[in-house]
């Protein structure tokens, strides 16, 4: 059978299988980025809170999840989650083994890692807001909540876009490691296709090329978002941030 047939969409083709898997990779990464955004915002606010204890815990979180291999964290969530669930089920009177769905475990693990990186992105973005603007908002009598909603959030989101783009690329590549839990995303799909056809080289090249498509497309999306978010800023200021 020729390579083209194997990659096609026919009966023996793996084309559709790989494309669906690429969508799964996107789904895992997007879920992970959303989980990471919540965790990252919490950790960033802990580190900016001024409280020593909170700041210490924020620091510990970023140090651990940026200093331990991603693979190890995925194993922890996948296997640890399974034993945790089983223990909870047993305490409620159910027997047997309860596994964690690999999609949940995978996006949670990648999300926790991306949270550590996103915390730093949000922290940097917050610190880039000119102090004068916060003082001006306080001076005209805006409450803390209003200041947060009207002044801080819009600017943090705008300033964080380039950093979030980097975290997205990182998470996209980390999501390949979720393949160890058996979730059929692009990496695992390439492995399965390579193993069943014995065309290892071709399928890993094609899998890698699909990853390149995903990374370069998302680069464009983030560049577009950055341009759009900065459209009301004078161009000199864009150069500065």
């Amino acid at each position, binding site marked *: 059978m020729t390579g083209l047939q194997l990659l096609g969409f026919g009966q023996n083709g793996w084309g559709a299988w790989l494309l669906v898997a690429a969508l799964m990779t996107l789904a895992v990464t997007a879920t992970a980025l959303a989980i990471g955004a919540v965790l990252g915002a919490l950790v960033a606010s802990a580190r900016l809170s001024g409280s020593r204890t909170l700041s210490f815990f924020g620091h510990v979180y970023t140090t651990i999840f940026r200093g331990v291999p991603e*693979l190890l964290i995925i194993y922890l969530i996948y296997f640890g989650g399974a034993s945790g669930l089983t223990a909870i089920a047993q305490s409620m009177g159910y027997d047997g083994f309860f596994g964690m769905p690999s999609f949940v475990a995978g996006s949670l693990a990648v999300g926790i890692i991306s949270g550590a990186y996103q915390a730093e992105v949000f922290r940097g973005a917050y610190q880039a807001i000119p102090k004068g603007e916060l003082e001006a908002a306080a001076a005209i009598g805006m409450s803390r909540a209003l200041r947060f909603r009207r002044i801080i959030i819009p600017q943090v989101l705008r300033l964080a876009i380039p950093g979030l783009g980097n975290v997205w690329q990182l998470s996209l590549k980390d999501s390949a490691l979720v393949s160890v839990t058996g979730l059929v995303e692009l990496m695992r799909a390439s492995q399965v296709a390579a193993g069943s056809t014995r065309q*290892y080289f071709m399928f*890993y090249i094609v899998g890698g090329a699909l990853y390149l498509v995903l990374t370069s497309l998302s680069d464009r999306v983030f560049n577009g978002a950055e341009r759009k978010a900065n459209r009301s800023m004078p161009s000199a200021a864009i150069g500065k941030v």
Partner: protein
Amino acid sequence: MDFAFLSSTMVTLIKAVPTSLMLFSLSIFFGGLLALVIVAMRVSGNPFLAGFAKGYIFVFRGSPLLIQMFLIFYGLGQFGVIRYSFLWPFLREPVVCAVLSLALCTAGYTAEIFRGGIRAVSPKEIEAARSVGMSGFLLVRRIIAPIAFRHALPAYSTEIVLMMKSTALASLVTVWEVTGVAQRLISQTYRTMEVFLCAALIYLVLNFVILQALNLLEYSLSRHRGAIPPALKA
């Protein structure tokens, strides 16, 4: 807490540390050399060489390391040309494949970091060097390389820590380094948390030591510019 189990786990895992460190140092060394070649091509001014370097950086930074590693480990053996060549006794070894893919991958990232360092060299310093008659290799060795390396070091430290973490992937091509051994212990004992904590501690300590060493290096390279010693900075 079961201290007997924790200490036996720790001992088993520490026995795997030399393998991790070997993967790490070999891939940083070869990756660094390759990055120098690629960055030289990238800034050479020759459109073909620069185009090749751009393509290399795009491919190795844009795809996951795991797929690159599998491509080398499983993909290369498919070709008779390679299986019957003198290279096969090396490429058959998981360790060689792991180091090869780690080095190829980090070279892409490192080349970009070095390029950033080179761009930070002030054109005036290069002009001054040229005006006293330096050119070619002497200019690179005495002026560009030292300044560029100093500028690139903070970003390069981050990349080095990322590489220490990336060595964990070698466990997936059957190299028994710390993560591989930890995974084996987890599947044998189902005591995820304890094994995980021990392995995480090992990586945190390794990364801490590496970062301290790099901070010292950074300080010693910029001491003449009035830098603050790392011990006082934190």
